[in-house]
């Protein structure tokens, strides 16, 4: 045996770049190296990253997520992936987009990515939103980063000929998000704000009751706020409107193996835990206990 010192790089991986041949084409989920196309501020807190990815990464749908291996903002490693909802899929351009809040170490590292950099993402993961055949018009109610998760619903609905009213809740006008994206797919948007108190539950309730009265509420969708979830659950029960909620929880594997990402659900009066990553992240709204 002769040997010389040739260390492998740490954490080598067989992630796919755009155009690579997939050695295991029957897989449902891939590890990809996306090329950053742009990574710009949307407002003071949120950035939109656009990645050119392998075609297989585009086989995703609204409500699913990817698990992102964020670069370090400070020289020390970022040890765990960060889950992010798909914000937009542009199959023609081969682009995948994420809208995110740059806050902790991982997302701050992500915010430093520049055009041309590579970014390791795994996905698509989880069960996303579903539309029932009979639905004609749905109501989407989101707040903060929850809007990033709900936005692709507008695309899904448009593709299925379903109308959308999106109620966008935000602290102030500067951080209202996704309005343009919703509208580009024909959704009607209503913005409610903390600054003028229109975001208060009583006012949102009025808006929802109005939509129900107008028969524009075949289903409810929400993400991002326990308060708004509780409101939709109450009205949904009252008017017998089905609903879906996208949940968040700290994750490790993203595949359903580790049981880190548990949230509580109540089904027929019995409380149980489910995995956000695999049983969700989109769940039956009436079963969720808190967001």
């Amino acid at each position, binding site marked *: 045996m002769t040997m010389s010192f040739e260390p492998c790089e740490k954490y080598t991986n*067989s992630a796919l770049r755009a155009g690579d041949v997939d050695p*295991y084409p029957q*897989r449902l989920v891939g590890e990809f190296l996306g090329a950053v196309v742009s990574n710009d501020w949307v407002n003071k807190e949120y950035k939109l990253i656009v990645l050119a990815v392998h075609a297989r990464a585009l086989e995703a749908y609204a409500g699913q997520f990817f698990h992102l291996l964020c670069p370090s903002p400070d020289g020390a490693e970022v*040890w*765990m*992936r960060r889950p992010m909802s798909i914000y937009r899929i542009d199959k023609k351009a081969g682009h995948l987009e994420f809208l995110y809040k740059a806050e902790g170490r991982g997302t701050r590292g992500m915010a430093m990515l520049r055009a041309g950099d590579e970014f390791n993402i795994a996905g698509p993961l989880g069960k996303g939103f579903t539309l029932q055949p009979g639905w004609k018009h749905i109501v989407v109610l989101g707040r903060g980063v929850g809007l990033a998760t709900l936005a692709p619903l507008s695309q899904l609905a448009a593709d299925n000929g379903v109308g959308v009213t999106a109620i966008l809740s935000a602290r102030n006008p500067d951080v209202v998000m996704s309005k343009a994206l919703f509208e580009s797919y024909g959704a009607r948007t209503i913005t409610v704000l903390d600054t003028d108190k229109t975001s208060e539950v009583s006012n949102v309730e009025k808006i929802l009751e109005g939509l129900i009265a107008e028969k524009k509420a075949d289903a409810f969708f929400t993400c991002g706020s326990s308060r708004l979830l509780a409101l939709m659950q109450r009205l949904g029960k009252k008017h017998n409107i089905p609903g879906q909620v996208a949940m968040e929880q*700290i994750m490790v594997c993203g595949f359903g193996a580790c049981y880190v990402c*548990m949230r509580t659900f109540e089904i027929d009066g019995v409380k149980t835990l489910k995995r956000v990553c695999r049983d969700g992240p989109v769940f039956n709204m009436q079963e969720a206990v808190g967001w």
Partner: protein
Amino acid sequence: MVDLSVKIGDITLQNPITPASGAFSWEYNDVIDLNRLGGLVAKTICREPRLGNPTPRMAETEAGIIQSIGLPGKGIEYFVDHIVPEYAKFTPPLIVSVNSDNIADFAALAEELSIPDVDVIEANISCPTRNQTGGNFAMHEDYTRDCIKAIRAKTNKPLWVKLSPNAGDIVSIAKAAEDAGADCLVIANTFLSLKIRTDNFRPALGNKFGGLVSPALKPIVLRMVYQCAKAVKIPIIGIGGVTKAEDVVEYMLAGASAVGIGYAGFRNPTALITIIDDLEAWCNERGIKKVSELIGAVKDDDMELDPLVAASHGV
């Protein structure tokens, strides 16, 4: 071309790469071809359905994570009826990890799991957030011996025993497990740890304590594997901080016959396959015919003992 297969007693693994219990499930077939792995290792199963620990169950630390899952699961019946069949769809041997806080029940569980589709029973006697008499028998030589003896009496399946890195004298515990009839030692589980948040002064995990998982710990576990390999005759599987093919080589040089991998598969879901490919390439580049040649091949018999002589060599 190198022969990557290794033998663990009567079981042959097509290569020395296995997932670590709790960090893996058949659901990973979504992303990698499970038929390429050395073995399939199921999450530790207990008799009754368990919810596990309060959330949060994971927190990032300086260099790694602490986690405290609490052995959730749907119980042995569901496991045998629904989970074993999922694994049975794949060719590598199935290693089933078991835990109980009661020795008689532990042995009974092993017996009930000794079914055709199960190839190996792995006794997880080292869950760090359980106490010494509550299922974490691996903190103590006598508990280890008693527990493994009881299990051995109830099953003819190969019996692997997962030890704890929190034990002070792992060599005695390894020997006790061997004496009691273990066929292989799995070294090791996670390091009992704590993180306190400085923003709200609270423990970061819902369960307070958790097990630390980090590539940084590899030198500690490697030392344990090395010490145990010198003291026992049964094979050893090294688990802790493997992220690349060289780490597999390092564990094998220290005396391990195979490795288990957790963290690296979280970080890069395709990591296990890459490590198999890299290990093969590493061996081929060096003309190594059988990867099993590496087991215990560390060169440690002619070490320089005189510091004056050692320090007169170049860097």
